[in-house]
């Protein structure tokens, strides 16, 4: 049942975004927990040091093999040249 709740929230966000109505979840993370039936909202900020979307990104192209990198997390964020 949980994926139903989350998947429908995703569809809702997609439709809001396409039509351009309401408050999009940009910068907000919704956390839902089914056993306690709790629903929390967390502020999330863009990290200016993010290796991908930060002010000085070090990831400027895709990694060759994401499956291999997932096995070896250090390779996910290549060091700056």
């Amino acid at each position: 049942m949980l994926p139903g709740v989350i998947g429908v929230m995703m569809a809702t966000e997609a439709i809001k975004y396409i039509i351009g109505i309401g408050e999009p979840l940009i910068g907000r993370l919704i956390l839902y927990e089914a056993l306690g039936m709790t629903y929390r909202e967390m502020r999330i900020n863009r990290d200016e040091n993010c290796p991908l979307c930060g002010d000085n990104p070090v990831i400027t192209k895709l990694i060759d093999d994401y499956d291999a990198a997932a096995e070896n997390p250090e390779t996910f964020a290549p060091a700056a040249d």
Partner: protein
Amino acid sequence: MKSYRQIVEEAKTEIPEVTVDEIKSEQEKDSDFVLLDVRDEDEYRAGYIANAVHVTRGMLEFSVENYIPDRDQKVVVYCAAGLRSLLAAKSLREMGYTDTVSLAGGYRDWTAAGFPTEQDKPMSHEQLDRYSRHFMLTEVGEQGQAKLLDAKVLMVGAGGLGSPAGVYLGAAGVGHMGIIDSDVVELSNLQRQILHRTESVGTPKVQSATTTIKSLNPDIDITPYNLRLTADNVEEIFSEYDLIVDGCDNFATRFLVNDAAVLMNKPIVHGSIFQFEGQVSLFKPHEGPCYRCMYPTPPPPGLVPS
């Protein structure tokens, strides 16, 4: 008792009228005003002045605030020939709008002057019926539906999250959907992956998903990609879509989706679940965080629940 002529004459004493030429030149000067079209749905459907806000005369008092919250905003009201707009502008004044004027001659004079108009892609009778409940939502309306029908959305994954998302996006009339997944349907999927049926076990998930969504809504196009998203194919596939709905189930794909979307400036609707917990967000590159802002790298493999 008043005749309609008396009512109109009274309104004329209160509401200034402007000509189509005046409004055209105000538009060209980028003046700050809102054009409000108060005609009926079928008149609006046949064409309207660009950027006009549409609220029918009948719904005016109920929903105008949703569109024009600032009561000091200058509002130029128009209808077909300039009578309903006078009455509408008068109603707006009664609601506290301070700067309302009526377009003399209305849409008739606007088109007669040869000024440009726009028209939404006409919807079929079946579409008008199928999506009629959306039209009752003033925030959606026919214009919102037209945006949905024009939208190109890629669903990454046709599993637990992709199922409900795909069902609702398809039913709502998202006109162009891509679905990418390399799995086949297994019996153990069916307890939650509602896109798939018992008779689909053993067939590709994208095929089963396409069949289900098309049976809900044959009005939309679906492109199935029966393959795994990789660094080699992601750019070609993403380039066809405006929005990515990420319902994947592994870190390799989630980071790939995130990296490609940021590099290509595509927004992602993010969702993930683990046991009884789930999370949702919208990652719009550079306007908010991306997945890597939260998790620069995936957790070590030993810690990843499978």
